[in-house]
Each structure stands twice: as structure tokens, then as C-alpha cells.
């Protein structure tokens, strides 16, 4: 049968788009990312620190004297989340660096933006992917760890004085995930190649860490610490969970917070100027 003899039905019911217009974008991108076995392996590996912390809590409940070496209190959660920062970066580099870059390369951005979707919907859809992946290795294990701690060591954790832990875990997880996700998308939007974007993101993180180290060594200025995004995120965690840095570095929390806010605004600006259906070169 010739192709023009084949028909498709006229679509009569013209449904209103779903309220959450960005959800199909998030769902399909997550499906594509999670279809890679290597990525699933990486996500499983990101749960190793969680398992270590569960063992730590278990050991301390069985052998209280171990608590002197491995203290189990609210700070444990902050240290755990600070450990996860590096892993969220790794997951974002492999899972998020191509999210916008690939669309720019293959022209798929037009498929999205010629639909009843705004640029905000598109960015929210992509942000949902990286946020989802990052929250899966911060918020989910963080809250799970808290629940396990309540179950294994009720005499240590079932106290009103420690009820702040769950909200603090949620807040720190969201801060980490949002900062890393926005940075990932902004870098992805600056390139048409997922590999280049991934390398640029890794280079940016490592580069800033190196610059921070050099400046601190040369000038001994504590303020130089805010140059590193990881250090800023750790500083937020330290402030939330009352952790005193082992290196004795104390930067007023306002500086890292301001840097993270500026970073987020910068990323939003990049996304606003790069996510367009029409590339205007003047």
C-alpha cells in the first residue's frame, strides 16, 4: 500500500497541556540517563558513604566506647552530606553535561520551543533531571540515614533537641543539589558538545580548587576559600550542622552564601541568554 493511502485518525479531543508542563522533559531525560548501566553503577557507588555511615551508627550502638573514636551525633549528617558534594559533581558531569549541549547540537531545542512550552518550562524540565539525580544521593540517603539512626539508636537521636537534623539534612541537600545542578546546566548551555561541557565543568571545579589552594598558600587570606564552590557548600553544611573545620578555617558564613547566590544568578543569566529558539549573532 502506498504511504499516502495509509491514514491516521483526526485528533478530536484537544486536551489542555498538563499543569506541570516540564514533567515530560524531566521524565524522558531521566529515562535516557538511567538507561546507561555505567551510570547506574556510579549511582550505586555514590551510596557507599551511606553504607559506611550506617555501619558507623550500628557499631557505636553495639559498642558505645567506639563513640569516642567515631562520634555519632548531629554532625555525622553534615559530614556525610559534605562527603556527597564530590559525588554529586561526578554524577552531574556524567549525567547532566549533555542535557542542553546535545539539544543545541542536534537542533532538538526547536522541538521543545515550538511547542506550547516556555523557555522556563524547558529549563525547569532539565533542572529537574540534575536535581533529581543529585537529591537521590543527598536528600534520600540523608533522610534514610536519619531514620536508620532513629531506629538503631533511639536513646541517642529520639530527642527534641535533635529534631533539627531532618530539616537541616533537607536544606543542605537542596542547597548542594541546586548549586551543582544550575552550574551543570549553565556549562552545558555554553557548549554544543556533552564531552566539552563535562570537561569544562570538571576543569572549572578542579581549577577553582587549585586557585583557592594557591591563593591561600600565598596570601593566607581566609576569604580566598570562597573561590571554591565545594568549599562554599561545605561551609554551608558546617554552619548548619555546627561542624568546626578540622583545618581551623573559619570564614563568616555570609561570604559563602553570597558567593553561592551570585553563582546561581550567574547560571540563570547564562541559561536565559543561551536557551533560545533563535540564535542571534550581532
Amino acid at each position, binding site marked *: 500500500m*502506498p*504511504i*499516502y493511502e*495509509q*491514514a*491516521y*485518525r*483526526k*485528533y478530536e*479531543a*484537544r*486536551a*489542555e*497541556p*498538563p499543569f506541570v508542563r516540564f514533567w*515530560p*522533559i524531566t521524565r*524522558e531525560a531521566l529515562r*535516557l540517563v538511567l*538507561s546507561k548501566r555505567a551510570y547506574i553503577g556510579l549511582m550505586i557507588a555514590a551510596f557507599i558513604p551511606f553504607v559506611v555511615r550506617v555501619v558507623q551508627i550500628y557499631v557505636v550502638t553495639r559498642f558505645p566506647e567506639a563513640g569516642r573514636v567515631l562520634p555519632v551525633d548531629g554532625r555525622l549528617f553534615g559530614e556525610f552530606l559534605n562527603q556527597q558534594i564530590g559525588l554529586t559533581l561526578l554524577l552531574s558531569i556524567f549525567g547532566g553535561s*549533555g542535557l542542553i549541549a*546535545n*539539544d543545541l547540537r*542536534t*537542533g*532538538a*531545542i*526547536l*522541538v*521543545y*520551543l*515550538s*511547542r*506550547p*512550552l*516556555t523557555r522556563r518550562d524547558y529549563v525547569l524540565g532539565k533542572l529537574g533531571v540534575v536535581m533529581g539525580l543529585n537529591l537521590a544521593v543527598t536528600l534520600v540517603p540523608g533522610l534514610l540515614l536519619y531514620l536508620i539512626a532513629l531506629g538503631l539508636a533511639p536513646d541517642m537521636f529520639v530527642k527534641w533537641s535533635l529534631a533539627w537534623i531532618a530539616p537541616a539534612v533537607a536544606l543542605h541537600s537542596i542547597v548542594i543539589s541546586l548549586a551543582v545542578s544550575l552550574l551543570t546546566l549553565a556549562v552545558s548551555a555554553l557548549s554544543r558538545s556533552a564531552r566539552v561541557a563535562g570537561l569544562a565543568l570538571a576543569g572549572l571545579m578542579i581549577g577553582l580548587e587549585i586557585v583557592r589552594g594557591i591563593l591561600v598558600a600565598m596570601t593566607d587570606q581566609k576569604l580566598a576559600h570562597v573561590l571554591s564552590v565545594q568549599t562554599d557548600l561545605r561551609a554551608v553544611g558546617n554552619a548548619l550542622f555546627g561542624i568546626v573545620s578540622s583545618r581551623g578555617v573559619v570564614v563568616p558564613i555570609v561570604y559563602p552564601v553570597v558567593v553561592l547566590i551570585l553563582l546561581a544568578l550567574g547560571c540563570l543569566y547564562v541559561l536565559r541568554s543561551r536557551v*533560545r*529558539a*533563535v540564535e*542571534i*549573532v*550581532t
Partner: protein
Amino acid sequence: MTDVDATPLVTFKDLTVSYGMLQALGGVSGSFPPGPTGLLGPNGAGKTTLLKALLGFLRPDRGSMTAFGLDPGQKPLEVRRRIGYMPEQDCHLPGMTAGAFVAFAGELSGLPRDEAISRAHEVLYYVGLGEARYRTVDTYSTGMKQRVKLAQALVHDPDLLLLDEPTNGLDPQGREEMLVLISDIVSRRQMSLVLCSHLLRDVERTCENVIVLSQGQVATSGSIAALTGPRRQVYDVRLKGDAAAFLTDLKDKGVEWTEGEDGYRVFLPEGHGPDALFVTAREAGVQVRHLRPGTESLEDVFLRALGHGS
């Protein structure tokens, strides 16, 4: 099938659109009536810019545009919901099968997921990709990618289909099949479309109306039948002798001509017969060796609108 007098789907008046300092459309006015309309013009004429303004991607510097009674600048989502857009350049999602891609496109247009999946399969069969719908689009040939682009534009059953250079990069057979599909969409599916192309034959074959753009201006517009109709007599002429004098004399008499591959195409105004050619030839001292009546094609209209020929 088209009622020319029907309310236009899209109208634009004095539309001016610029990319920074570069003006792409300079005060164009016109309309897309229901049915197939060709948007014709050389590269850089402003065809794609007009489509992008219609989709609300570009804000006009001046002028107004309405689609389905709505301003695309003010209500872009409502307008896009009723439009299917097949972009000129390649567009697909890496790693996605054609079925998943088209269903996803349907969902983005507001179709419920189940309906989007069901329609994706139907539309892929319709464009001739039924057997290949479980392959990833990355592995498709150029012709197949063009078809999948058409499928994603059709999946939500739009009121107006915008096809930007749909036969780009296709071999003759692929081009023929694409034109058959487009004709079928118009004639049997009763869908209105705008075919944006620099290929005259594609437009002539599939469209009823045409807007010719040149350097950001509307060079001419109207129904193809009226533009190419019998209002002027056309003759293909071959000469022996000094053609330059003959052509100059024709121009002096207000007769237009274009140079063909093997002679000249002469457009006689209403009221003139071929004897005018013989008289002019005698005066110019040339022999008419071949004289054949012809019909004015869209190519003639196009070239005349662009100022080529006499």
C-alpha cells in the same frame, strides 16, 4: 478545496523584524489563507524569520501579526498549540527511537501520554516509517530524518503546518515521496500549511497561494492560478541575427522578456498578438526561427517579482 475568501489563519501587517542591526523583514504585509500557501524566496529573503515570528520566537520591531485571531507575541503558547512546525535544520533527541521521539513531541504539545504513543505510531506509519519506528533517529538517513520531522509536526493534529524547506537534502525519489505526502496532507487531511521553500517546483506542485519574499519585502503574492493565469501571452522565441536590437525594441514597446536556455521567453501584454513579434523582428533585422506559445510558470512570476529579465 480552499475557499480563498475564507478568513485567513494568519495575517501580518507592516511586519518588521531585525536580528540586532540586521533587518530581516522590512514592513511586510500579507496573509496565509486556509489551504496550502507557499512562501517563496531566495536564501536570506526572510522566509524562516517570518515563520519564527509566527511561532513567537522573535518580537517584531514594528507592525502586527495575528494567528487564529491571537497575537503570537502575546499568546505564543496558544498559537503554538495549534501549529505544527517542521524546522529546516536537523532536529532529534540523541538515543531516542522514532516512536519515542514522536510520542514525546505529542506529549509536549499537550496530548495525554497514552494518546501520544498511539498517535505517534499512526503518524509514523503515515509518513512511511512504520517499519523503522523502533530504530533510534541517529541511525536514520537524511530522507528518514525529514520524515520523522514531519511526523513530529503532525502528531498533535495541528490546524496549521509550517514546513521549512521539507525537501532539503533529499534525492529525487525522496523528494517526490515527500511532495506526495504534502499533497496528501492538503487534499485528503484538509490541513492548512505553509510551505517555505526556495524550490519553485515544490511550491507550484503543492500550493494554491504564494507569497514571494525578496530581501525582506513581499515581492508579489496571491493565488498561483491568478499569478500565472492567461492575463499575458507567453512565447518562446529563437532568433537569428542581432538579438540585442530586437530585445531593446521589445523593451521600448513595454514587452517583458527573460533569457532562456535556448532563446528568449517573451511576455506580451493583453491585446497584443504574436504578429507584434514579427513586426519588431523585421524592424530589428532579425529572423524569427522558432515561435512557440507557452504558459507563464511560477518561475516566470518569481523571476519577474525578483526583478530578473527585462
